[in-house]
């Protein structure tokens, strides 16, 4: 079914009364989703109504019958399905004027009676006028539930009061009403109409809930002259009246919600744009709405974009068609064009559509005149194939058609340079203008003529065209035109130059620069928004202000660094691996005892052997490749650099044979500074103290001396040793062992060569020289140190040493 209203986004059908309430919320969502263009009417109702119309029409009405059709249509259309047949049937045919079934006295429209067929439109209009306030007043007391009772007879005198107030082309709206029962939907429509007339004030009450309440207070309508102009209607308006007004969802209801969402958050500290972009009630992608009349709808436009969309046109002369930019329903125009021409029999199948056309015709017969009356059907340029649905205009004569001046035709597409929208090269523009002109010149006359005949033309209004053009221009925005559109720029530059050369000085305009919409490049850096004095970051994130969930910092490493890091890691892994292997051996060794007990006698030999091997292996892994009595410094260092390794060594030493253990200890002493440095983090060298102490105690004097020498081996080693706790401890151990040796065994060889003495001297010297701060306290201080020192140093120094080392004087 052809619904021309759907082309007009502002004109939507009025909802059924019964359905309105629950669909109000849905309508709101609908509007939010689809914008104002959403149409939420029920086509089935419309279809039924029109079908009813069709039936009635077929009953052979006259000219007034057409009016009845309209009335019936209106009444039917506004009704719920249940009520559809009755109203249609109840609507009296003005021509026949049967009394309605209800108790209402049938009042044939006095206008009709008086004027007969003279001026149908005016009479009908007066009917409407008279009826409207009457019904409006009636509608109040009638109440919502009162569908069966008839209206009190419309006050006919009132009709005469308002002859000038309503233009006559509301025939349909009024004619159906006075004699008909006050159908609730009709009433509601009337209420709508009154609301329209009232202007902005009652607008918020347009929702279904308030309709009845509102109209309770309605009295006769007094139409202000100001609003009068609005009532001068376009054909579309009349169609709206006939068909019904859109029932807009209550704008007030969700207004608060929408306002809240539109309200931007309070200004923040740093981010450039805070908060989500304001909710647009009209999605950006929707085409522009049609211009509305100011007085009535302007306010709603401001506040509620989804206000009632009643297209009351701004200016319109009585009976004259609106200027063409105002949209005339194509259907009406079409039928206007066709009605006087051809009256083929009415095909039965094409019911609803054609009846609508009929009505439209009727509506506009006086309004639009017949500018196209003499012209053939414009839409059949190529043959009959193009009029599939509307091939047959309604058969009825519509009555006198006052000829009006033809409406303004569509624009003849004349090339007009719009300097504000086109940002292209002027030369380019000129070329295209010329092209268009040449094209237009050929067919301008014909095209214009054809266009004027096309009732469906200009469905897309100027505003919409501009809107599309604007979107397309937006796509041309570029921050760097030479990057985005290189060839275009270059081409026109060349052309410019060429023209400069060719026609030098004749036309200056060629030198104008290219204008393309350029957008400044904006730097959008994200800065986390913070309130002053608050902890942490915002929890609210929005489109313009996204919140970084993870504060990742990019650490860029150069290749070299990465390689080095990898190497270090690899080495460490290697060491650990070695240590692990040694551990496994060590564990075997440690468990030997237990296992030995468990194994029977026979296998003890083998086990012993195994044990020995393991032990040797362990040592082998530590020692130097060639020398048997020296621990590989490198290996030792490596292993000891790992904490696990140190632990390993400390556990290993007790199991080693004494000689090998001694070498290990020597190695440790030798490399003590390095080990100490590496141990700074772990501080686990002290694990070694115990096993080393054991070892030291078993050392011979010579090896002890050697050990002490190793400890002091390199330059400055001793000072470093002294800085380390373990080192100091070791030193003390050695010294005390030496002392013990000396004191216990006077004949020990410790004093044989002067090494020991010298070493001790150097130690004491070092001890005295080293500042106390760098001298780290040992794990424990052997008691006999003092006696040791007393042997070698004089009293003064001894006292100093004593103080420094906090050795208590102990008597031996």
């Amino acid at each position, binding site marked *: 079914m052809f619904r021309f209203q759907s082309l007009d986004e502002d004109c939507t059908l009025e909802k059924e009364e019964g359905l309105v309430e629950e669909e109000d919320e849905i309508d709101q969502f609908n509007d939010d989703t689809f914008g104002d263009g959403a149409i939420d009417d029920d086509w089935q109702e419309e279809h039924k109504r029109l079908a009813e119309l069709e039936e009635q029409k077929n009953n052979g009405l006259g000219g007034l019958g057409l009016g009845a059709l309209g009335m019936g249509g209106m009444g039917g259309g506004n009704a719920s399905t249940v009520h559809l047949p009755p109203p249609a049937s109840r609507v009296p045919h003005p021509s026949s004027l049967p009394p309605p079934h209800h108790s209402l006295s049938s009042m044939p429209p006095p206008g009709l009676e008086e004027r007969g067929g003279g001026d149908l439109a005016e009479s009908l209009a007066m009917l409407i006028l008279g009826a409207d306030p009457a019904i409006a007043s009636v509608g109040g007391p009638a109440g919502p539930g009162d569908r069966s009772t008839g209206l009190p007879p419309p006050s006919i005198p009132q009709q005469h009061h308002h002859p000038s107030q309503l233009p006559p082309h509301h025939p349909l709206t009024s004619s159906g009403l006075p004699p008909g029962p006050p159908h609730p939907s009709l009433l509601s429509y009337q209420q709508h109409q009154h609301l329209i007339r009232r202007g902005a004030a009652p607008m918020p009450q347009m929702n279904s809930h308030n309709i009845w309440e509102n109209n309770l207070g309605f009295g006769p309508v007094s139409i202000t002259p100001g609003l009068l102009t609005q009532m001068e209607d376009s054909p579309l308006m009349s169609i709206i009246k006939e068909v019904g007004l859109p029932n807009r969802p209550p704008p007030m209801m969700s207004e608060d919600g929408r306002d809240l969402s539109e309200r931007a958050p309070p200004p923040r500290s740093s981010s450039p744009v805070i908060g989500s972009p304001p909710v647009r009630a009209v999605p950006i992608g929707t085409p522009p709405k049609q211009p509305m009349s100011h007085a009535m709808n302007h306010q709603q436009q401001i506040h509620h974009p989804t206000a009632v969309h009643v297209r009351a046109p701004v200016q319109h002369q009585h009976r004259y068609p609106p200027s063409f930019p105002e949209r005339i329903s194509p259907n009406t125009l079409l039928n206007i064009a066709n009605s006087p021409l051809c009256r083929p029999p009415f095909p039965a199948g094409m019911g609803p559509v054609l009846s609508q056309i009929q009505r439209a015709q009727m509506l506009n017969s006086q309004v639009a005149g017949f500018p196209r009356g003499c012209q053939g059907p414009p839409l059949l340029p*190529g043959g009959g194939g193009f009029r599939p649905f509307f091939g047959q205009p309604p058969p009825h004569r519509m009555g006198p058609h006052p000829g009006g001046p033809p409406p303004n035709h569509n624009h003849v597409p004349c090339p007009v340079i719009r300097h504000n929208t086109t940002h292209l090269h002027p030369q380019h523009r000129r070329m295209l203008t010329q092209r268009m002109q040449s094209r237009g010149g050929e067919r301008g006359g014909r095209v214009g003529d054809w266009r004027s005949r096309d009732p469906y033309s200009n469905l897309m209004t100027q505003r919409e065209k501009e809107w599309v053009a604007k979107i*397309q221009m937006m796509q041309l925005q570029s921050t760097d035109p030479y990057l985005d559109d290189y060839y275009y720029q270059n081409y026109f530059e060349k052309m410019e130059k060429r023209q400069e050369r060719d026609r030098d000085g004749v036309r200056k305009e060629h030198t104008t620069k290219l204008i393309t919409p350029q957008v400044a490049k904006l730097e959008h850096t994200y800065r986390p928004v913070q309130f002053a004095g608050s902890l942490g970051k915002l929890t609210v994130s929005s489109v313009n202000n996204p919140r970084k969930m993870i504060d990742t910092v990019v650490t860029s490493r150069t290749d070299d660094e990465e390689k080095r890091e990898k190497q270090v890691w690899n080495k460490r892994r290697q060491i650990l691996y070695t240590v692990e292997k040694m551990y496994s051996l060590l564990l075997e060794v440690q468990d030997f005892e237990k296992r030995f007990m468990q194994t029977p006698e026979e296998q003890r030999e083998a086990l012993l052997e195994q044990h020995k091997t393991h032990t040797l292996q362990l040592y082998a892994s530590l020692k130097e490749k060639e020398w048997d009595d020296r621990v590989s410094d490198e290996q030792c260092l490596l292993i000891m650099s790992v904490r696990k390794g140190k632990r390993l060594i400390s556990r290993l030493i007790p199991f080693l044979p004494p000689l090998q253990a001694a070498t290990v200890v020597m190695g440790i002493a030798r490399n003590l500074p390095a080990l100490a440095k590496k141990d700074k983090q772990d501080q686990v060298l002290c694990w070694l103290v115990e096993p080393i102490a054991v070892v030291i105690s078993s050392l011979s004097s010579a090896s002890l001396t050697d050990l002490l020498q190793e400890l002091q081996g390199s330059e400055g080693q001793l000072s470093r040793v002294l800085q380390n706790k373990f080192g100091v401890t070791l030193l003390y151990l050695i010294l005390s062992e030496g002392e013990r040796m000396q004191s216990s065994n006077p004949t020990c060889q410790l004093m044989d060569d002067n090494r020991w003495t010298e070493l001790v001297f150097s130690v004491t010297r070092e001890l005295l020289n080293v500042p106390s701060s760098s001298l780290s306290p040992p794990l424990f201080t052997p008691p006999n140190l003092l006696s040791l020192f007393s042997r070698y140093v004089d009293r003064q120094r001894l006292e100093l040493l004593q103080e420094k080392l906090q050795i208590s004087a102990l008597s031996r």
Partner: protein
Amino acid sequence: MNYMPGTASLIDDIDKKHLVLLRDGRTLIGFLRSIDQFANLVFHQTVERIHVGKKFGDIPRGIFIVRGENVVLLGEIDIDKLCDNVLQQVSIEEILEEQRLQQQAKQKTEKAKVTALKDRGLSIPKADNLDEY
């Protein structure tokens, strides 16, 4: 009316008779009434024209709204130059029948080809869904 001269804008094509070829192969002829930024088209008094050989048939379709992505090409029709010397217009039934026969013949050849290939051990996958990959 110069809307963005030098650009491919459909604004100047409004209310003119156009022929549009769709991606599914249909040919529609109608008056272009409305467009939008995606080149969605609203056609009025649309006629679907089916061509089979030298014959063609018009099926009136009413109002069409074509989604822009489905348009292959769109061109204005000169109303004054409508006589088709070469093509012969036939009725709808006839053209549909012709189309059906054409489809049948094509399917037959296609089937024969496929069986022939299969016999030789080759297979060409059917390019049924051109849009899906």
